[in-house]
């Protein structure tokens, strides 16, 4: 009875056969689908470790033999992948620091402090989520051009320090609202300033939510293609995401290197996912449900 309490619960008279058969059927379906879902990633990994002959062989070779680790070394000599990696790390770290700090500060204001016009400003904030970024694309590009920021990391980093994105503010505000106001009141009694309450009470209590924002932002910045494509020009300024596409432009024939580059760009995200899985789940659900 308690084993399957959900939407697929069958009528009582079917219960016995259900308990006997359906879990097996579900397992078969789930396993078949899992294999399907895993296949593209497996195929990228597999191709990235093959020789060219094996990659194009018919019938297909599933497990590379011998394993060509060399492909991964080659991407670093074909293009400055090490520089790409350092650039990606630098931009991701600087951007995420800004996003976490400034969205937390702003979310504190929207969740803990009362003022005239607060609700109106909050509606304004939320409505900016709906605005397609292309609407502001051209003027923003021109602004950065006049500031001589084109072909530097500044356009990809500095805006993160100005609010950190409406969605992140919204997500942290939702979390801050769940923290009892008694903490603030007690701290005010003790003569603490708003900043102290924010820094000493709110932030330490919100580590899971801050980690969620950080993790989701790391993935977003790491995989961003549009931003670096527009604002960076020099090869040695590029990020991994855009650099990877150059690998195709330069050597469209070298499929195995392209797959190695793809794996190399994907791996850090997979590692972060396995280390911080619960923050992905919580963040997506917090943002999704309260929307």
């Amino acid at each position: 009875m308690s084993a399957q309490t959900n939407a697929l619960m069958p009528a009582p008279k079917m219960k016995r056969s259900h308990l006997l058969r359906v879990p097996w059927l579900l397992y078969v379906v789930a396993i078949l689908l899992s294999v399907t879902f895993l296949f593209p990633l497996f195929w990228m990994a597999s191709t990235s470790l093959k020789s060219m002959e094996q990659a194009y062989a018919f019938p297909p070779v599933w497990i590379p033999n011998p394993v060509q680790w060399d492909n991964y070394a080659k991407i670093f000599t074909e293009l400055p992948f090490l520089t790409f990696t350092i650039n990606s790390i630098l931009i991701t770290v600087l951007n995420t620091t800004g996003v976490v700090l400034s969205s937390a500060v702003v979310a504190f204001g929207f969740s803990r402090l009362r003022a005239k016009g607060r609700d109106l400003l909050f509606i304004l904030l939320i409505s900016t989520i709906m605005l397609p970024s292309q609407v502001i694309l051209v003027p923003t590009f021109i602004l950065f051009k006049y500031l001589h920021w084109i072909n530097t990391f500044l356009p990809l980093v500095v805006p993160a320090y100005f609010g950190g994105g409406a969605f992140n503010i919204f997500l942290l505000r939702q979390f801050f609202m769940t923290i009892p106001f008694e903490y603030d009141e007690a701290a005010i009694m003790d003569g603490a300033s708003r900043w102290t309450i924010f820094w000493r009470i709110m932030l330490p209590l919100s580590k899971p939510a801050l980690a969620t924002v950080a993790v989701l932002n790391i993935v977003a910045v790491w995989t961003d293609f549009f931003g670096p494509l527009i604002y960076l020009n020099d090869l040695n300024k590029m990020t991994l995401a855009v650099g990877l596409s150059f690998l195709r432009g330069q050597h469209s024939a070298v499929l195995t290197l392209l797959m190695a580059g793809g794996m190399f760009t994907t791996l850090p995200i997979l590692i972060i996912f396995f280390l911080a899985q619960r923050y992905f789940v919580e963040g997506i659900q917090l943002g999704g449900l309260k929307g």
Partner: protein
Amino acid sequence: MSATGTVIVPARKGLRPRQKESIAFYLFILPWMLGFVIFTFGPMIASAFLSLTSFSVMSAPTWIGTANYVTMVHTPLFWKSMGNTLFMVALDLPLGLIASLSAAVLLNQKLRGINVFRAIFYLPVLIPTIANILLWVWIFDKDSGILNVLLKLVGIPAQPWLTDELWSKPSLIFMNLWGVGSAMLIYLAGLKGVPVELHEAARIDGANTWQGFWKITMPLLSPTILFQLVIGVIYEFQIFTQGYILGGGPNFSTTFYVLELFNNAFRYLKMGYASAMAWVLFAVTLVITLLVFRSTPYWVYYEAERQR
């Protein structure tokens, strides 16, 4: 409060913290307010102005009134790219919604190791768009791609997939089915919010699984579906990377709206025209989103409304 004399002192004390709180509020949200003015509102005004000019970055913008919008209407590629994007909104979005909801229902079972299955279903979402499209270009390869190889093995003739005008967009939709994991997680959270007692009560009243799903689960899940629909509309209108990597596709079949906008802005340096395109994009997104919201009384169920 309206008493006299003694009120003055407490009133002052009572007002001051309020004012202090107001000032603190505006100081805390200052980063966002600055960001909003500098990186959102200012550029919006500028963009609206630029959309009425001819502007190539090299020289100052010249006022041309609504000429950009008129040009747009007479540009076949504008309509084609809008059609391509609407094709994705009309097919990719509903298919993704159905697939992710189905996946969530499947993985809402209390099976042993269910968390492993959930992680596996989510895994393809983690592949960066650029790596993913390069991977699928290989999977879809006409001659040696694994998809055609497998089809050949079971006796189905090879298909042209991404290299064919008719097939290219359906191929991308097929590819996107591997990305249902993130929406699936949101539905899973929604499914957890469906009270077990409701299903038990319905079962006692003689309802079967199918009825339980449509009469209980779906209404309670409808706000989540609405959220997914709205986010989905915005997302589909933003499709860019796939089309960019595919070079716009055979006969512009994957030249999506944002790619056409990007090409005008940064390839042909028609910044005014690109700004006008952006406003049309905004308007179309807004109209479709409003239509979605208008339709909500007919299918979205809010528990709170019962109290009215």
